[in-house]
């Protein structure tokens, strides 16, 4: 039950994009069509889970033992960037189909704030190993939900008669704001 609450809170209530405003770069960059954003959501979930897992190990077995918690951020940046690189190489070699689907997105996420944010929040909230993984998967799914919603809206938007000055990113920002407002309605539903 605890895990379920954590998961739902990460997906909806504390949605990383729409309530914490992390990962906005890819949120706007890749939300032009639903298929691409779906792939992006999956890639982010995978990367986030793997890096949270490693980050938890590094934090608890290295940084905490050595009293070096002030190094958390910089070590995590290093860790995530190289994990993504490694993941990319492995996928490219062994699962080319998956690479064709994710390849370009993986590079985009390499040093993205949402991927760094989740391990950092895991550490700050003193989550256990399994809790951090559930939280990471939940956040990834939340990101996926947000970006797919946004992409569907933007696909509809292509038909709309948008004023020239707002065309493109301008209207996308307004849309994201409205989406965030509606997600704000969930706040307070689950407190963690």
């Amino acid at each position, binding site marked *: 039950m605890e895990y379920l609450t954590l998961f739902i809170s990460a997906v909806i209530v504390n949605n990383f994009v729409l309530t914490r405003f992390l990962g906005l770069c890819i949120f706007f960059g890749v939300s032009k069509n639903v298929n691409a954003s779906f792939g992006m959501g999956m890639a982010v979930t995978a990367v986030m889970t793997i890096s949270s897992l490693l980050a938890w190990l590094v934090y608890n077995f290295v940084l905490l033992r050595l*009293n070096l918690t002030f190094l958390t951020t910089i070590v995590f940046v290093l860790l995530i960037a190289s994990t993504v690189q490694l993941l990319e190489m492995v996928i490219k070699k062994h699962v080319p189909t998956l690479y064709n689907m994710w390849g370009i997105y993986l590079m985009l996420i390499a040093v993205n704030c949402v991927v760094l944010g989740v391990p950092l929040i895991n550490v700050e909230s003193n989550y256990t190993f399994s809790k951090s993984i559930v939280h990471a998967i939940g956040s990834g799914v939340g990101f996926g939900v947000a970006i797919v919603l946004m992409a569907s809206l933007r696909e509809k938007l292509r038909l709309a008669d948008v004023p020239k000055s707002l065309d493109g990113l301008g209207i996308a920002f307004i849309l994201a704001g409205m989406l965030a407002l509606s997600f704000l309605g969930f706040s307070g539903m689950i407190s963690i």
Partner: protein
Amino acid sequence: MQIAIMALLVMVLTGLIFGLVLAFANKKFAVEVNPLIHLVEDVLPKGQCGSCGYAGCMAYAEAVVLNPDVPPNLCIPGKEAVAKMVGELTGKTAAAVEPRIAHVRCSGSVENAVTKYQYAGVQDCVAANLLQGGQKSCQYGCLGFGTCVKNCPFGALTMGPNGLPHVDPDKCTGCGKCETVCPKGVITMQPIGAKVSVNCNSKDRGAVAKKNCSVACIGCGLCKKNCQYGAITLVNNLAVVDYKICMDKCDNPTCFAKCPTGAIGLAVRDKYIGNAVNVAGNVAV
């Protein structure tokens, strides 16, 4: 002091470990990319139209280099020149590309076609089509909001004053982008040099088609009877020309002469000859 040293040590060590792992992985998981792919991509027109059936020029270049079964002549905008170069680069023999041109199968201009309601929404065919199939009584006809015009990567389409898109035969590369975006499927690709073309897409029965549009194909079959080569068939109340038979056998087409509504007419002749005649007097070629 001790903490500073520890911090330094940890950073150096982590950096070193990750660096080494990555360096090792780079060698171990190296995937060789054929440099030929980039050469082939340079030759392609890079309209990213996707008419070759791949996601873009890069994807086609990759496929044509790596897969021996992929022919070098799939690039339709590139025509024979590109097919030849791709063939030379990949060592494949290039079969000739069949040049195509967009053909709007509708003559239902503002005067000809009956409208069932006034559409005042978003000026886009896809949007209009969502509302009971658009404003025209004929559910197969061109809606005239120019989704094809907006999506043409080569600027070959313009919206004529009669509310039908006009194809510029000199600019149209036959990439087929308009074919995919048209919600009604009014635009098709027809081979350059086709003798006749049917300028209607209506699959309604004769009486209904005629009521909706004065120049509709009513499926009477007169053109079929008049074609001695059997190039014309009737499919769902609509005349369909088999271009292969039509182009190979017929020199003097007479099939269109008897058409009661003028739905079938001479097509624009080979654009290379610069002899763009359209006897049917139809703006949308």
